């Protein structure tokens, strides 16, 4: 479980006092004296005259699900895009395992083990499941066929895909050779999450993974999120769905007007409080 990982890292890690996250109720046990996997400080991102992020701090601790909530335009997606290299922040720093990193492209973040599933942009519909899982990092055949003729090892990729789906307990996808477009919404999302999970050794980021799904399919995706966390991978989850957030998150980062209004836990605050902080009715 998450807490075991946390206490193991307890000794060596100097406590990181988070300047800027002055919200009360932040002190959940999971964060005490543990080095965050991912730290962002003072992230700023503007689009012309529109301020997307106005100095955001964020900490992600080992083995936790950190939910990011906020109203439309609060900067949720911009925040995770900056964390995953899809956008470049104008100012601010990102540290991974205490080391400063700079992501100029999604590939840079991927190389560091940060994987993301972006809203509505998760998969290539015409390609099959295995091709989607390995899109952008295909496995080539060994020997001359691979190095000189650049031939792909389709068989190996399909095998690895089956293994990965099995590891994540995704049993709805029996055939990894079918094109994504013939799958249901939940199955597509499962493929996208599986891809992130397969390569996200450090952090997995999910942007509204359940937005287009029904109740049952949402449940399956949330289950995947839990399994990922239990396997030790911290997850950042953006969601509009308050019940889901309170069900699955260990901590909740509330974005408001391009800033972090507060970081709470499902234990410290109620859903009503969270909504109040989101809308500015309650000071974080």
């Amino acid at each position, binding site marked *: 479980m998450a807490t075991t990982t946390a206490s193991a890292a307890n000794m060596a890690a100097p406590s990181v006092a988070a300047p800027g996250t002055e919200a009360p109720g932040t002190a959940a046990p999971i964060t005490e004296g543990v080095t965050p996997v991912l730290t962002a400080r003072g992230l700023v991102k503007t689009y012309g005259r529109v301020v997307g992020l106005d100095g955001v701090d964020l900490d992600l601790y080992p083995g936790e699900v950190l939910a990011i909530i906020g109203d439309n335009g609060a900067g949720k997606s911009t925040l995770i895009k900056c964390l995953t290299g899809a956008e470049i922040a104008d100012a601010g720093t990102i540290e991974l395992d205490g080391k400063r990193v700079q992501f100029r492209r*999604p590939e840079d973040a991927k190389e560091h083990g940060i994987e993301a599933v972006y809203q509505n942009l998760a998969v*290539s519909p015409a390609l099959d499941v295995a091709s989607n899982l390995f899109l952008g990092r*295909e496995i080539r055949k060994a020997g001359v066929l691979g190095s000189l003729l650049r031939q792909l090892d389709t068989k190996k990729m399909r095998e690895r895909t089956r293994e990965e789906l099995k590891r994540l307990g995704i049993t*709805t996808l029996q055939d990894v050779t079918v094109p994504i477009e013939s799958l249901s919404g939940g199955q597509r999302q499962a493929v996208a999450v599986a891809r992130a999970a397969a390569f996200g050794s450090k952090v997995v980021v999910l942007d509204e993974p359940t937005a287009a799904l029904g109740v049952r399919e949402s449940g399956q995706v949330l289950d995947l999120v839990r399994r990922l966390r239990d396997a030790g991978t911290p997850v950042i989850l953006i969601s509009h769905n308050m019940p889901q957030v309170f069900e699955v998150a260990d901590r909740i980062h509330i974005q408001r007007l391009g800033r972090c209004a507060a970081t709470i836990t499902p234990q410290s605050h109620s859903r009503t409080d969270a909504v109040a902080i989101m809308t500015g009715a309650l000071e974080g």
Partner: protein
Amino acid sequence: MAPPKRRHRVNLKDEDMTPSIETESAAALVFDTAQTPVQRVRSVLHRYPALSPAVVLLISVIVFGMLNERFLLPANLSLITQQVAIVGTVALAQTLIILTAGIDLSVGTAMVLASMVMAVAASENGVAAPVALLMGLVVGLLSGLLNGMLVTKLKLPPFIVTLGTYSIFLALTLLYSKGSTVRGSDMPAIMTWTGKSFPVGGVSVSYGVVIMFVLYVIVAWALVTTAWGRHVYAVGDDPEAARLAGVRTTWVLRSVYISAGSIIAIAAWLQIGRTSAASPNAGADLNLDSITAVVIGGTSLFGGRGTVWGTLLGALIVGVFRNGLSLAGLDVLYQTLAVGILVIVAVSVDQWIRKAR
């Protein structure tokens, strides 16, 4: 109309594991449902996009063969392949671009430009034939590079970019050649070699047809077995999703336009061989002819779907229709009419197939 009822087959083995999720997942299986025969046909056609043009080609060959006994003579079949070689090669280039959800209106004039550079260099400038061919290849490659850079750097729609370069290449051709045709007899033999034939069991096959076929094999192989091929499809499917998945979309697009330009330069060589001349006024229509072949071949104009073999079949279907109708004694206008109807039917069928789930 009410949607057809779906029956769910529950895999009993799966039920032994964690119960709650497993029963749910069985219900989420979509492809494991009963289909009507029509739906089944549709999903097969969806999975193998080259199948419908193959069926059309087969039927049209049989029908034209019954209409006129001369149609199936080896000499006539050989003629059809030779007539198809140039548009088939250009359509191969066009397929690559359409797979990325682009379109290339400049293929015809780029080909003419390359052919004029080859011909003028080899005849008037006295450049050695291989070097002249290489110069043409470079011109084709550069034409592709120009299109590719305009599409990726300025982020202009490919339609607009190639509409512009269509005129630019046409003007450059006329300026360079001063509007005059270079005859094949004024060029070294290598230049017109592609028009020569060799016999294969009574049928004469031109070297141009062989070159076209080899190009198809190479491109098909690259599209199917390499990561680059997957990326071409992914970029055409959804460029942003591909980019976020780590595909270097700009690089993929440029490589596609450059490859297309190179293929077009080879088509220029085939053109010189086939017509035994290089004319600045030939081939500007190849843009629409190549798009026709691609579309009849079942490749989606929206990108991400299709095969090069479909395009070859599409080019052959057009060739068979034109040849068969003229053997049946119909006016050229009716051939054009038939091709027009074919395009619309092909796209309608394609739309219908796309609805398959």
